[in-house]
């Protein structure tokens, strides 16, 4: 399969600070990849190099077969961008804004159809100044899709959304998959990455610290399913073979063999007449995995880099 994005050894510095420090990243054609990382990890710097907004210091970058630093008009026809922060022209209505952008492309989709696609058909004549935050973000997405792109960059597309608006956006992004469009998505939300992405790339301190499916990432940090319960005051200590750890009023097991340990635990509980109140078996969440992965990286930057650029 051809690669929509192929990045090797990308470096981008601001002064002496290496915001992006040798990032490798690839997105296959038709793949949705989530790019995760804390603020200041180099996400936005990386994505802005790929979008052709920033020049890189070194590394090789190919986006749809071209170097975005030399972005041609033809290349821009094939790429859709949802910026992290951008506002709309307050004086134009939703449909006028989409029509204006449709003129920028040689072959664009039908403005009314795109407006319907992002669920704004009922707000077509609302001026930019009258649209809600969620509606503005949907219009952003519509503007990225109007040129019928092969590749879409989504920089935190649902930040600030309420849960139902996020779910609606997710279904729109999943609909992109049907069209064969490749997507590079940055997000702070683990559930968003898990829900939408075929693959997750975690960046911290300007370096890629993990790359794979949610399950791959869990394996990588050795995250295990845990078993926990709240012991009663008169409960005997669990057998030493179980290696239970007490934290607060909870006992926790991190078994290497889940079935065997569960069997041993329940057998012991039955014999000793222990109730195992609040017994829970928990899969590790991507959030736990993410926190483990990014905790090790040096927390040098506390803001998105960019102030010294452009």
């Amino acid at each position: 399969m051809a690669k929509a994005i192929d990045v090797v050894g990308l470096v981008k510095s601001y002064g002496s600070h290496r915001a992006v420090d040798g990032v490798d990243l690839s997105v296959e054609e038709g793949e949705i990849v989530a790019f995760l990382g804390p603020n200041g990890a180099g996400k936005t710097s990386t994505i802005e190099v790929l979008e052709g907004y920033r020049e890189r210091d070194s590394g090789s970058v190919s986006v749809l077969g071209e170097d975005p630093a030399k972005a041609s008009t033809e290349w821009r026809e094939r790429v859709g961008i949802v910026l992290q922060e951008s506002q709309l022209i307050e004086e134009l209505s939703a449909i006028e804004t989409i029509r204006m952008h449709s003129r920028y492309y040689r072959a664009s989709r039908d403005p009314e159809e795109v407006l319907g696609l992002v669920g704004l058909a009922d707000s077509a004549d609302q001026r930019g100044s009258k649209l809600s935050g969620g509606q503005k973000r949907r219009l952003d997405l519509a503007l990225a899709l109007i040129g019928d792109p092969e590749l879409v960059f989504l920089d935190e597309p649902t930040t600030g959304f309420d849960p139902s608006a996020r779910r609606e956006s997710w279904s729109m992004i999943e609909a992109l998959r049907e069209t064969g469009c490749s997507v590079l998505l940055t997000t702070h939300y683990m559930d968003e990455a898990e829900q939408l992405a075929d693959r997750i790339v975690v960046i911290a301190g300007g370096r890629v610290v993990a790359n794979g499916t949610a399950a791959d990432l869990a394996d990588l940090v050795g995250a295990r399913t845990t078993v926990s319960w709240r012991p009663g005051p008169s409960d005997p200590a669990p057998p030493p073979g179980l290696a239970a750890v007490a934290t607060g009023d909870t006992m926790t097991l991190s078994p290497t063999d889940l079935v065997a340990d569960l069997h041993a635990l329940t057998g012991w509980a039955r014999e000793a007449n222990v109730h195992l109140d609040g017994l829970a078996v928990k899969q590790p969440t991507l959030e736990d995995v993410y926190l483990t992965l990014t905790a090790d990286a040096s927390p040098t930057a506390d803001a998105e880099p960019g102030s010294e650029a452009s």
Partner: protein
Amino acid sequence: MSALTQLRHQVNFDLTIFRRNSAATFFTVIFPLIFLFIFTSIFGNQEVGPPGEEVRAATFYVPGILALAVISATLVNLAITMVSRRERGLLKRVRGTPLRPWIFVMSQAVAGVAISFFMTVVVVGIGWLVFDVDVNASGVPSLIISVFVAAASFSALGLALTSIIPSENAAPAITNAIVLPLYFISDVFIVGEKPEWMATVADIFPIQHTASALQESFDPFADTTPWPWDHWLIVAAWGLFGLVVTLATFRWTSARR
């Protein structure tokens, strides 16, 4: 779509945006007309000129008001709206589309020229209808050239100015700090004798030459078409300077992002 078609569409949208922006329309369309009413009220609208050829005094206020309208429609309007669009991420979004940058920038100037001609018709028309302003037909060709040269040049200067304006809040302050003092010394608000040093300073900048070119074009006593080449060339030279600065320094993204 050809570049020219794209330009036409963008100009249409930019004019719609201008029309719906109440601050921009007030300062460009209403404000100069208010000044025309104020001047005729304060200084009167008596008949002046050689016997037999008397014209209304308002005839001499119109060129200054026109200069004010053209500079508001172009330099002031562009400096403020383009900085606002840059700081709010709108220019960055445009830069991410296949629209060629020159078409977008050119559209702003074309819209400014179009609004300037609209204001020429409005100011001269209201002057003629309400204040009996004398419109000398022999000056019309040079009036058209003067408005065009000034509108194009001040558009370029407005775009150039965006590079030194750091934020949306600073835009009206910086722009007005530049044009307001020049209006007063450049025959826009007050026409007449002024100290020599002041005339020397005013002569450096394009506002004086715009006002002078419009005054010559509007001269009610001229028998032949006036050709104020010297003023046009100086205004155009400033416009060229603005274009060079724009090409070298125009920013599409906020420095803070």
